[in-house]
């Protein structure tokens, strides 16, 4: 069976993992309450979307 010839050095492992990055979250201001929210979703603060009350708060 094919097996790795060498142990992966700490440096290699860490260099590879240096590319793991979290993407910044896209946020917009809510029309109603100006709280930040995800675009195209219900505002979790005031429960409105498209000027319509969707969730009870």
């Amino acid at each position, binding site marked *: 069976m094919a097996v790795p010839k060498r142990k992966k050095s700490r440096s290699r492992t860490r260099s590879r993992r240096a590319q793991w990055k979290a993407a910044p979250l896209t946020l917009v201001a809510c029309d109603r309450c100006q709280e930040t929210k*995800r675009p*195209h*979703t*219900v505002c*979790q603060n005031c429960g409105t*979307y*498209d000027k319509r009350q*969707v969730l009870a708060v």
Partner: protein
Amino acid sequence: MPAPKKGPRLGGNGTHQKHILANLAKSLIEHERITTTEAKARQLRPFVEPLITKAKKGDLHARRQVAATLELRNTPFYSGRDTLFKLFEEIAPRYAARPGGYTRIVKLGPRRGDNAPMAIIELVEPLTVAQEATREAEAATKRAVKENEAKAEAAPAEDAAPVADEVTETEVADEVEDKVEDAAPKSDEA
């Protein structure tokens, strides 16, 4: 080879997917508004809307077809009669004036735990009298414009044919536009 259906597939196999969709549809009819994952909501919409359209026909055949799709069977614990009754006698008349588009999907964002994007799918409100009037007026205007365009296209083609060498294309286009503008207000009044 048959091409797979568009969008995400639910459940483990085809029958499982059918059961999931039927159960979601039953819940939606019963509660009129359910919270589920966005993928399920998106699959549910083209599943229930034809059922509502069927229910608007209201005959026995439609009733049996809907009952079969919703997998309504008489069991000691659950009878689908209430669901079917509600769909045909309550929901269908509400949408008599609405040509499809009976549901609304609103996104809620990711769920805690598995980060699945969630959504609310709900039956929309019936059209108000004012909305219906606006819709009809808009449709009438569209029809009138279309008819005028058809007339305008037919008329200059006959007139312009003999003198085509002298009349440039831009002039013809201007004439057509003028005719459409003149004709549009008249049809609105009528």
